[in-house]
Every structure is written in structure tokens, then in C-alpha cells.
């Protein structure tokens, strides 16, 4: 259970990335994500991907922690790639304005180098967001992050709600796990053998008790918070508050530079969002 509980949630290790303020990590995450989202240049995307994999290593996240997530994302990306190929097999040709056919697939459906390159680029574009997201999620202390959000004038109630969600996430996860097992014992079939419609009905059989037992908790938590004076004034201080330090500014600077560099590549080298190796 312990190893499962840590899945997808903050884990406390001392690494240079963990030592950065949560706000810094949010800004860097947004900058780098926008960079890969904006650019369709495979060189830029692979560079950011490499960079984020390096950061992943520095932040001492173990592969076992994220394996499941990676598998899901890969499955999603592959399905997405296959489906989008069948929907618009000539998308690459439209974009790159040339047509190099590799071979016939089926009827009039042809595979082109342009399409392959376009989908390859898109695949890595989405894939490179994954390590960034993982780093942000797994190395950010939620309450410290909430305090930095509040520091940049985000309403503290909203900021606290975020921290609280992450605080109770493992609880709810564990609760879900327990309920699901108990319902399986009553005969719930969650395997692939069940029909899709049944699976939806079965999911409800877990979610309803989950909601009710979670509502119980919410009442208790909000009472506990009221009794200790939450939101009595319009401001609050934070136990976990961290001032931005030199390393925070440095990290933000690196991200900004990467972002600007990507913009620069688009504007001056590619003259557009796409990198075209075919002309």
C-alpha cells in the first residue's frame, strides 16, 4: 500500500529541484510547456525533451513511481497517432507542401514521408510534456506551492483549496481502492470481460460510496478548519513559506531563455511554427 500511496503525489526527497520554490516550478513548467506546444520543430522539441529528462534524473524520481503513468500516456499517444492518421492521412502533405510516397496501404490510402514526419513531431511534442508534468507534480510541496501562489496575490482560499486537495488525494485514493475491492467481492467485474455499458454501471457502484464517504470527511475537515480560525481575516501567513532565492531566479531565467530561443527559431530560421526538412 505504501508504495501505491506515493503514486502521483508529492514525495519528500532532498534534490536541487525539490529545493526550488513551488512558484518557480510552476512558472518553469508553464514556460517549457508553452514552448513545446507552440513549436512544431522536432529539434526544439527533442531538445526540451532531453532537457526535461535530465531534470527528471536530477530530481531523483524513480522510474517505478512513474511507470504506470508513462504506460498510460504512451498507450494514449499511440492510439491518438493511429486514429489521427486515419482521419487525415494527408495532413503532413498539406503542411509541408511536398509529397513523398513511401507505399500503398489500402485502396487510395498512402503513407507519405511528410505524414510520418508530422506525426513523429506531434508524438514527441505531447510526449515531452509528460516528464515536465511529472517533475512539477512530484517535487512540489503542495502547501509551499499554495503559499507561493498566495504570494503572487492569488486568493489564499483558492490556494489553500489546492493544497488541501493534494493533502487528501492519497486518502481518497486509498478509500477508492478499499471500496473497489469490497464491491468486487460482491461480484463486481471490473475486468475487460464486462461489457462497456456494464462497466459504466459498475463504476457508479464504486463512485457513489466514494462520494458519500468523502462528503463525511469534508464536513469534518471544514469544521476543523473553522474551529481553528480559517479565513477569519483577509490574509494569512504560511508556515511553509519560502522566499524566492537566487536559484529560483536562475531556473526561471533558463526557462525564459529556452522559451525565447524557441520563438527565435520559429521566427528567424523556420519562418513559422513548422520546421520543414522537405524543401
Amino acid at each position, binding site marked *: 500500500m505504501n508504495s501505491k500511496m506515493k503514486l502521483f503525489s508529492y514525495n519528500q526527497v532532498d534534490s536541487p529541484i525539490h529545493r526550488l520554490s513551488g512558484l518557480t516550478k510552476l512558472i518553469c513548467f508553464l514556460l517549457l510547456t508553452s514552448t513545446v506546444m507552440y513549436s512544431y520543430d522536432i529539434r526544439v522539441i527533442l531538445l526540451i525533451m532531453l532537457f526535461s529528462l535530465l531534470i527528471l534524473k536530477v530530481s531523483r524520481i524513480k522510474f517505478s513511481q512513474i511507470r504506470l503513468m508513462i504506460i498510460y500516456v504512451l498507450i494514449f499517444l499511440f492510439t491518438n497517432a493511429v486514429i489521427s492518421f486515419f482521419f487525415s492521412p494527408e495532413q503532413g502533405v498539406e503542411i509541408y507542401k511536398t509529397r513523398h510516397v513511401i507505399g500503398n496501404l489500402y485502396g487510395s490510402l498512402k503513407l507519405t514521408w511528410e505524414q510520418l514526419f508530422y506525426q513523429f513531431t506531434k508524438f514527441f511534442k505531447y510526449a515531452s510534456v509528460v516528464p515536465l508534468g511529472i517533475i512539477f507534480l512530484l517535487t512540489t510541496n503542495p502547501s509551499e506551492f499554495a503559499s507561493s501562489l498566495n504570494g503572487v496575490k492569488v486568493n489564499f482560499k483558492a490556494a489553500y483549496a489546492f493544497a488541501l486537495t493534494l493533502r487528501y488525494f492519497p486518502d481518497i485514493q486509498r478509500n477508492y481502492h478499499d471500496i473497489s475491492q469490497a464491491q468486487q467481492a460482491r461480484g463486481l467485474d471490473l475486468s475487460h470481460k464486462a461489457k462497456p455499458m456494464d462497466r459504466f454501471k459498475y463504476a457508479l457502484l464504486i463512485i457513489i*460510496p466514494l462520494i458519500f464517504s468523502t462528503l463525511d470527511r469534508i464536513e469534518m475537515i471544514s469544521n476543523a478548519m473553522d474551529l481553528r480560525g480559517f479565513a*477569519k*481575516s483577509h490574509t494569512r501567513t504560511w508556515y511553509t513559506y519560502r522566499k524566492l532565492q537566487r536559484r529560483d531566479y536562475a531556473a526561471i531565467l533558463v526557462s525564459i531563455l529556452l522559451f525565447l530561443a524557441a520563438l527565435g527559431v520559429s521566427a528567424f530560421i523556420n519562418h513559422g511554427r513548422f520546421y520543414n526538412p522537405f524543401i
Partner: protein
Amino acid sequence: MNDQAIIEFQDFSFQYFSQADPTLYDINLKIHPGEKILIVGPSGSGKSTLGRCLNGLIPFSYKGVITGSLKINGIETTSLDIFNLSKLIGTVLQDSDGQFVGLTVGEDIAFALENDNVAHAEMHTRVKEVARMVDMHNWLSSSPFELSGGQKQRTSLAGVLIDDVPILLFDEPLANLDPATGKTAIEIIDDIHNNSGKTIIIIEHRLEDVLHRDIDRVIVIKEGRIIADMDAHELVSSRILKVTGIREPLYVTAMKYAGIHVTSKMLPGHITSLKLEGSRNALRAWYKAITPDDHHNTNPSILRMKNISFSYDGIQKVLDDINFNIREGEMVSIIGKNGAGKSTLSKLLCGFEKEDQGTIHYKEKDIKGMTIKERAETIGLVMQNPNQMISKPMIFDEVALGLRLRNVPEDEISHRVEMVLKTCGLAPFKDWPISALSYGQKKRVTIASILVLDPKILILDEPTAGQDFRHYTEIMKFLLEINKRGVTIILITHDMHLMLEYTPRSIVLSGGRKIADTLASVVLTDSHVIAEANLKETSLFKLAQLAGIEDGTNFVQRFIDYEKGMRN
């Protein structure tokens, strides 16, 4: 003692908007600074509502009509908001896990200071100071998952103490703790009372456990009214507990069985203050007159674990070489502190997890190949919180769920559900929505929804947690009845009364190993097992010593046999 009351109720009544009748009637009560008060009452008596009126949750979060007056420190509470009140009265809630707001101990203790805009540096200094008071200063950066129940509660306490409030209110502080941790909690509360002179109010229904340390006055609430306000000795020797449905201390019960007239002169409020002179012979005579039961069970084996080991991560063994044999028709308790492996054991039995080593046999047949669904037809599991299981709005549908998922024909379903509802005393509610039921009734529904699959073994996780004496007795009597119909019952529990009264045999786990598998009377008098499993020696054992009975364990066993004889 100061003449000026710190808390004063005058003709105070309260009615929730959502209820047809008032929950509290004509409360008149004065509490003086520095007093230590215990408020007892069965579930639904209004004792928690009284607490909510004190700390301001009423009317801040729960709306209703207040009449009469409630003054704290001479100020009418209706003129104060919950935040002003929280500076006068600090509340430690029942579920220390649920009220753990912060991600770490330090953060949680600091919560009130954060809301008061205390500067960062000062906050850290004060958190350290207060954490030291409750001995949590080495755990400041730990998350709630790394803490034991007792540590969580101490963190909650520190979070309240940090405000230096004059009054502390404890709402059922023992509810989620094992016996040893509960005992420590009562000691910590008492130490704070002695060292700080704060006014202490404890709301609990477990009288004997709170009376482990001194209490100035006990207030008894029944059906919204104060029916007694006296010291512990007087209360215990009166008939009030019996009338109210609160469990009297076990040693007092034993004395009454022995025909001793318990008076307040004997100082029976605490086992440590009890004067038994003059009654020793009566107790000894009673003890000798009881014919011991035969506890030998020769039924064939129904469930056997052989050399079971299991670990979640492949490194730390959660269960280590567990062996036991449960015979048909037995009622067994599995006990041990949190993390001892009790829940894991039940998960292995139900097939939720797979054992690393060893085998599980049902009627001498290895059940390794059976799926969760198949096992559920022989081994049923009832979870602690009924809300974790209930997924249908109507009682009939909820109970029928397991059968419907197995595609049983509808006319057979309705026949079987009706039978089970009858067994569970739920027949009159057949067409009711579940939301109209009480907690205890909901519990029955969940038991019924498992029984409908006709399991031969029923595992219940903490079936009586949070229940007062009356509901506890109801649930346990019901389980006894099912047991008599031939269902083998395994109870996972912290509750020592439950072990003593209902499960002749206890299996004790500690650190994933079985450390005892014997009579409950032996377990609860063996100092070694008691210490390892976070149990508490039963007061009956002390009573035996006071009476000069050498074989205390046997005394406890005879008490159990006697009670059982009375039930039949």
C-alpha cells in the same frame, strides 16, 4: 476555585432547523475555571450538540434555534463568532486523521497561527515549543501517513494548545484509538490539566476508560436533558448508568454480580481508589461458585492459514509466517495495533491480495485458485464504515446487489433478500430508502448485503467502532445470532470489551507475527501481550488482586463464563 463560572448555561435549549424536536432542553450548568468535567451520554443524547454549542460550530456551521443563555467568561456566546470563541475554547475533534489539515505535523500545529497572520519566524519558534509539550518535536516534518493514531491526536492537541486557550474541549477523544493509546491520551489530558490549570471538558461514552484518571464531575445527558451532575463515585454506585445505557466499569459489574451493594463510600469511581474491604469474601465466594465452561472446540476446521507471509513492497514483511486454524462455528477476534497486519490478513482471505508464501485452506481445501468473486461466496467481508459499501438508494436493491451481479433469477433474489432482511431485523424497512436509517441500521444493511450471498465465514472490520453501549450490544447480539445459525465469525477489533464478552478466542498480531492465539481472558491479563499489542490490562484483573484472588486470569475467565450464562 473561583466563584465566577467560566461556562454557564441558563435554561438553554437548541433545536436544529432540520429536526422536528429540540436536541437540548433546559440545560442549566455551571463550570468553574480549572475544573475537569466529563460529559457522558448515549449516541443521540445531545452531548455532541452541547459541545458544538460551546465551540461555536452551532450556530456557525449548524443552524438552528437557540433559546436561553450560554455565557463563556461572562460573555453571551451569541454575541461572539466562532473565531472569537476559538480563542476561549480549543476543540480536539474525534477523528484526528480527518482534522489533520496540514501536510506535515509542523504545518498542522501552525494552522491557527497562520490564520492569525503570525510572522514566519515567530510561528516556527512557537510551533517547536508547543510540539515539545506533547512530545512531537522530532516529528515536525512527518506527514500524517507516517504517524500513529496517538501521534495524530497529539498533533491535534498541539494545534489547539498553540493558542493558549483557557478551556479545552475533547470530543470523543478515545473513539479511534487502541486501548493503550487511549490510556495514554487520558494521561496526557490529565497532565495538561495539572500543569496548566486549564478548564477541561471531555465528551465520551467510554466511562471506565476516562476514569483512568481523576475527574471532578461527571455530567450525564439523556434525551437532551442533564439527568445527573455528580462525582464519579456517586455516579458509579447509582442506577443512572443502567437507565441511560452507558456501560459501567467492568469491575463494578463484577461486584454487582457478586451481590455486593456498591456505595459511594467504597470510592468505586476508579479501580485505583476502590476500597474493597468487607466485600472480598463475597467476591471470592461468587468466583468459586461459577462453573467454568468447556472451551474445547472439536468441530472440523473451516479456515486454516499455513505459513502465510506477505509483503506489499517485497522488502518489509507485513505478515510473517502466520499459522492458525479456525473451526466451524467459532467466533474469533483478531487484534493488534495499527499496522500489525490485521487488515492485510483479511485482504488475503478475501483474495484482494495474493500471499507470497504459504497456503490458505477452506475446509482443508486450498483456495489459491479462487477469484475474489468466488471467495466472496464463502468468505464475506463487512467494512468498518457502512458508507464505504452502500451504493444503492433503496434497502432492497442494496441487499440484492450481490445476487443481481451474479445473474440470479429475480424471483429467487426477492425470496433470498426477504429471508436475509428478516434475519437482520430489517424486514419492516424493506421498501425504505437507506438514507432514512440510523448508523446502526445501515451497518445491518451492509451485513445483510453480504449475508445474502450465504457465506460460511463472515469477517467484520471494527463492527462496533464509534457505537455506544446500546448499539454495541444490539450489533453484537445480532452477530451472536448469526453465529448460532452456523456462520463462523472473525472480528477485527481494538475493543477489549468485545473480546471479553463475545469472542472466546483471540488471535493477536504484532509486527506481522502472531504473538498469541488463546482465550481472551489470557490475552487481556498477559502483560507481555498487552504491551506488544497496545492493549490494556482489564480492570477485572486488578479487582481479582484487590480481592486476594491469586489466579486473576481464571477470575476473568469465570466472569466471562458467568456473563455468557446470563445471556443464555
